[in-house]
């Protein structure tokens, strides 16, 4: 009778050892695969940086490691491609776009999230449906609109900042993202604020915005990346370096540099640096917000 009580079976020593070994091998193989992934994803960057520090002969040869570090390549690329001009252009364009986009989207997102008005849901659905429209459908009429506006209005649009900023100030993506966050602000806060005598705008400024730093940052980073990437539209609406953004400048430089790989890679790295800085500063919150919203600019 007493024998029926089951006694926990003691594992033999060598079996235990095998288990530990197995989990170690498992972990090691996972690490090996992960590291292989990292090697694939950063090798192009490493090659770019190494090549950008070589002499022309080395860069065209089969070397991977430069014999001496030629930082003057950066100076030369910077001067030759007028990167300073493209840089300032891109920064100014981004800042103008961002200031408009943020102001307008914050206001619209607040109204869509927290005020009930007739036609709200239908209008929001209509605006949201524009995401489906491919850029190639819009690019031709928008080009015509922008030229028209420039020709009838007092400000130049082509070869100037308006054509490259104004069309991007209305962003349904930003409105959508912000609306999600604004909806989560508890109603009690608004009631309290109203008792204190503050209206919508003050509530928005003093309560809602300080609570929504994360989505605001995502919008800022994404539209920074977006305007750093814009190529087709600036190609249409600019025809001199005066207002050309960095992506277009780099694309031109890549064509002109021809076989001068070291300068080309220096130029590429110059373009990447600001985005890298922004990404490394914000990356934790940024990737998490992307994962949470699952959206893409």
């Amino acid at each position, binding site marked *: 009778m007493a024998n029926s009580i089951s006694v926990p079976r003691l594992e033999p020593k060598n079996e235990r050892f095998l288990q530990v070994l197995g989990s170690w091998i498992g972990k090691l193989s996972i690490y090996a695969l992960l590291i292989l992934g990292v090697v694939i994803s950063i090798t*192009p960057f490493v090659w770019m940086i190494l090549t950008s520090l070589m002499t022309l002969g080395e860069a065209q040869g089969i070397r*991977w490691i430069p014999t001496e570090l030629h930082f003057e390549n950066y100076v030369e690329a910077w001067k030759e491609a007028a990167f300073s001009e493209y840089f300032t252009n891109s920064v100014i364009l981004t800042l103008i776009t961002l200031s408009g986009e943020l102001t307008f989207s914050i206001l619209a997102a607040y109204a869509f999230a927290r005020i009930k008005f007739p036609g709200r849901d239908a209008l929001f659905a209509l605006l949201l449906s524009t995401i489906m429209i*491919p850029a190639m459908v819009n690019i031709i*009429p928008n080009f015509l609109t922008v030229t*028209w506006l420039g020709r*009838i209005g007092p400000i130049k649009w082509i070869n100037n900042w308006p054509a490259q900023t104004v069309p991007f100030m209305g962003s349904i993506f930003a409105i959508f993202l912000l609306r999600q966050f604004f909806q989560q602000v508890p109603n009690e806060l608004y009631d309290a604020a109203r008792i204190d005598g503050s209206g919508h705008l003050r509530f928005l400024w003093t309560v809602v915005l300080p609570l929504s730093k994360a989505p605001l940052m995502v919008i800022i980073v994404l539209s920074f990346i977006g305007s750093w*990437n814009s190529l087709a539209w600036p190609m249409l609406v600019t025809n001199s370096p005066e207002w050309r953004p960095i992506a277009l400048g780099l694309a031109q430089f890549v*064509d002109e540099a021809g076989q001068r790989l070291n300068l080309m890679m220096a130029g590429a790295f110059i*373009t990447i640096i600001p985005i890298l800085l922004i*990404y490394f500063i914000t990356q934790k919150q940024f990737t998490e917000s992307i994962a949470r919203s699952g959206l893409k600019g």
Partner: protein
Amino acid sequence: MERRLVSSRRIREWREYLTAYLMIAPSTILIFTFGIFPVGFALFVSLHKWRLKRGGFLGMDNFVRALDNLSYILFFLLAVGLLVLGINAIRKMYQQASENDDRPWWLAFPALVFSATILALIYWVFKLLPELLDIADKIIGKEKSRELFVQLLGEAFRADLAFATWGIFTKLVLASIVVGVILFFAKAFQNTRNFGYLLNFVFIELMLLIGGWLIFVTYVAVQDAYRVAFEAGADPGIWPQVITIGSGVILIIISWRFWQSAIQQSSDRAFIFYILGALTLLVGGALLITELPTAMAAGDEDIWTGLKVTAFYSLGTVPFQLTFSLFLAILLFQRLAGSEMFRMLYFLPYVTPTVASAAIFRQLFSNRYQAPINQLLISLGFEPLQWVREPSGIFTMVAESLNFNLPEWAAGPSLALVVIMIYSIWTFVGYNTVIYLAGLGNISTELMEAAKIDGAGRWAIFRHITLPLLSPTTYFLSMLSIIGTFKAFNHIWVMRGGGGGAGSALGTTDTFSIVIFTEFFEKLRFGYASAMAFVLFAVILSLTFVNNKIQGSRVFYG
């Protein structure tokens, strides 16, 4: 006292509305001007001969040039689709009405006034648009001033056709207001559902009117094409093609319906009956659709190569992207030390400016034998390849190295396009991994524990728990990636070596977007490029629709 309270509440309500409208105004105006209006404007452009400047009205000619007779068939199908939408809406409304014991049918008459007003507005904008565009030409060489602009605006407004349509529009607006007031005072909306019925009727009538009009217009265009062809002594054969291909498409849709109801059948016999029916219909439809190549024989070849390249590009990137990123996400999900750092590094290619990273790839995969990838091939004992400059298909190249010849249709994507695919996979795996990680995080661990206790192995858990529960994420990512491949522009532009000519791989890397852009930007054919862009739009919409139907029904939302 009572009255004043009510009215002050009303005033407060109106003030709320006003605040809201003012707050959304800037964004809404901008999105309308640069996001919604352009679709109509593009349609307007696509109906004209438009080379930098607006030429004559062409009707469907641009579409016919692009797709040959297929364009008539597509217009008919579009019209039928609109009619089906309208009829479906009637059916749904009938159900809702009989459930609630409502009798809303008389609302169809006031709705007719409203939908006529909307159509008149569209018609007026269509007539006014060219006059407005001409203002820019009239202003050249004159001192720009507000007075001049207002004067020209007035002239545009009073131009014959625009003014006549404006007259119709204003009369209809007045009629709408009168009808609205009558409805309001007749207490038509005491039953709150009536407002919904009214909107539904407006939608239905718009669909039916536009669908019917489209059928009429296409019919006239086909008759014109016949007349022109007969004068030249040829037979365009449009009607037989419309009938065979149209019924082929309808057969395939019915077959899909059969297939769906087959799954719901409980008895084996009914199941087999439905499956057989679906298969027969499918085969019949497919046979009828084989007429397609003759219907589009005279179409623009660039469009078909562009579509083919885009299809290759989608098929060659999306599955790989999703598989690799799912794999990486599962590895990262083991929560080993340092997984945050791995995630950050995988995400790096996605945030890098595309022009820069595409330039790097163009050099890594350069045709020079000293380029890194060619050096890798040489060190492994292979011949160096042309990579970004190689226009021949990769299946052909593989077959040739094994000493046999493939027919031309089996050539596959060019090696240059494969480089672009590799680039895309490299760029987007990190983004997809982050989204998959979030999806994995949402799966409850209890389910996995339970399965483990039941003795399920790792593979069984992955196959029967992880994968089904991840299906919403997979669905979302595949949609996003497919649409992304249709939109792709920057990196392909850089890798094909910028504008001008066919590019470094003889046009084998030109996706549909690139074809449209060169048609517009280099050949300056605005009208034709717009028509092409609409074809792209139609392809994206139908892909989304099909993906929704097929994959959407399999998505498992826990």
